């Protein structure tokens, strides 16, 4: 048996554990840790009354009317917002997909250095690094922060939210798609080139057919994430269910909040199922 060496993995594991301990100590020792609240009866009775109000069992604050989720009219009203939310998520994925489609090839190292056809040049080399940096940066900034910035320039609605979601996902899908091209089997492209195919023909028959299914699969996976995030982005960009959720919460209309959570869950489950179906079509297609 060899003595375990201090590998990088081991060292970073210890480092992470130290960081974890430090973080927990910092949080629990902080004045606003909320630890006492967690063990106080008052906080739990607050939480219980909040839950009762969500379920419409406690008419105290909701005006005594019928719970919103038992009211067909309210379902129809919020259904329009759910439609907008769905639209926003598809639009966001469309933006991300179109952006990636235009830029993922020069962001792949084996394309920029001419391994897969074309001619390497300084310009392409610079473009590669710039695109990788853009991917990394758009990915590092969360959707909500993009939305906060974008509402400074664009009027509230579906569009700014979709752009914010699109930007973040552009970075994620762009990086993944470029890596698909980098890890691609170069055989078909080389065979095409030795058979005298031009650059466009190589792209159309050697690269795109291999990369396309993966690219679509990533987009569909991200769509599942995006539908969960649209509500959050709607908090600031005012499109779809998010704004209504926030308004209802601040007006203590808790049964309306429950109705919106129901719509939210319906959307999430529907998109998950649809995405799974489409991904299967991508695989068999």
């Amino acid at each position, binding site marked *: 048996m060899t003595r375990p060496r201090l590998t990088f993995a081991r060292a970073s594991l210890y480092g992470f554990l130290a960081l974890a301990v430090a973080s927990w100590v910092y949080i629990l020792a902080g004045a606003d840790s909320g630890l006492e609240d967690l063990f106080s009866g008052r906080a739990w009775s607050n939480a219980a009354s909040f839950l009762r109000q969500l379920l419409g069992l406690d008419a105290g604050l909701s005006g005594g009317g019928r719970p919103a989720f038992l009211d067909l009219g309210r379902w129809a009203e919020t259904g329009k917002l759910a439609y907008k939310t769905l639209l926003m998520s598809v639009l966001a994925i469309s933006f991300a997909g179109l952006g990636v489609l235009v830029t993922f090839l020069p962001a792949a190292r084996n394309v920029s250095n001419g391994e897969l056809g074309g001619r390497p040049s300084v310009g392409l080399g610079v473009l590669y690094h710039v695109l990788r940096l853009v991917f990394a940066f758009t990915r590092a900034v969360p959707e909500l922060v993009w939305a906060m910035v974008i509402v400074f320039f664009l009027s509230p609605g579906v569009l700014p939210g979709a752009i914010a979601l699109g930007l973040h996902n552009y970075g994620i899908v762009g990086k993944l798609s470029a890596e698909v091209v980098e890890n691609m089997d170069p055989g078909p492209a080389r065979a095409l080139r030795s058979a005298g195919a031009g650059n466009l023909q190589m792209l159309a028959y050697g690269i795109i057919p291999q990369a396309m299914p993966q690219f*679509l699969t990533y987009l569909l996976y991200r769509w599942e994430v995006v539908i969960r995030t649209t*509500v959050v982005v709607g908090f600031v960009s005012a499109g779809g269910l998010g704004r209504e959720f926030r308004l209802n919460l601040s007006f203590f209309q808790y049964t309306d909040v429950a109705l919106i959570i129901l719509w939210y869950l319906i959307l999430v489950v529907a998109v998950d199922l649809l995405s799974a179906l489409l991904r299967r079509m991508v695989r068999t297609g």
Partner: protein
Amino acid sequence: MIWIGTPKASGLARVLETRRLLTLVLAGALVWSLAGAGWGGGIVHTGGGNSLKGFLLALFPPEVSPGFLNLAFAASWQTIVHAVAGITLAIVVGLPLGVIASGSLGNPGRSRLAIAAGVRLLLAFMRSIHELVWAVLFVAAFGLSSLTVVLAIAIPYAGILGRIYSELLNDVPERPLDGLRSSGASPVRVLLYGRMPMALTDMLSYSFYRFECAIRAAAIMSFVGIRGLGFEIQLSLNDLRFDEVWTLLLFLFALVLLVDYGSAKVRRSLGS
């Protein structure tokens, strides 16, 4: 995709049909979303173009006075603390749930399958609600505190980690496990000495990826009023100090890059 041999004519027709349908559906979604976006007048605020220009120009240079850098470091620390606490809690909760959901413990039978299915449903519920929605609900129920925020991150992340862990534990090759079983190992031992070690690298690298996401999640928890990078970004935006916003965005960028770099190095060191 890749066909081995020549598919039967009916099979080929079916594949072409699927592809055409898929193209139609995706193109339809694209057109529908672009048409519904509301491109009419008034997309841009009055003066929105100018403020966009101001925002982009504010990058040269961002705010780098020592006082503000101090503040940015403090905000980064807050964000890291919440992210680390959230992800550790998510791992502690997600790992056992993932093991149960994978159905690899206990004696084979209907009850085990039912428990695994129940846990899988629980995991699906936990991850179907976004961390910030959990946070908003928890703040309404318990009030604002660091622990509420950590809990809000940990719940959906435990749901995701649990699902991925259970898939990774199920995807390991069966051969070596059969070897363990035939030498009389109990299911717990098969898990500890067979499945876990084989799936460990992938589990670690996925956890690292989630840690990166947790940093972003912790940053946007500012929305419910907890301090951190997102909180400072909001304040600077309200003051129209775009140069400060850029500094904070670059700090966030650096944090994510750091985790990304660390996880790539760990993966390489484990994968060798």
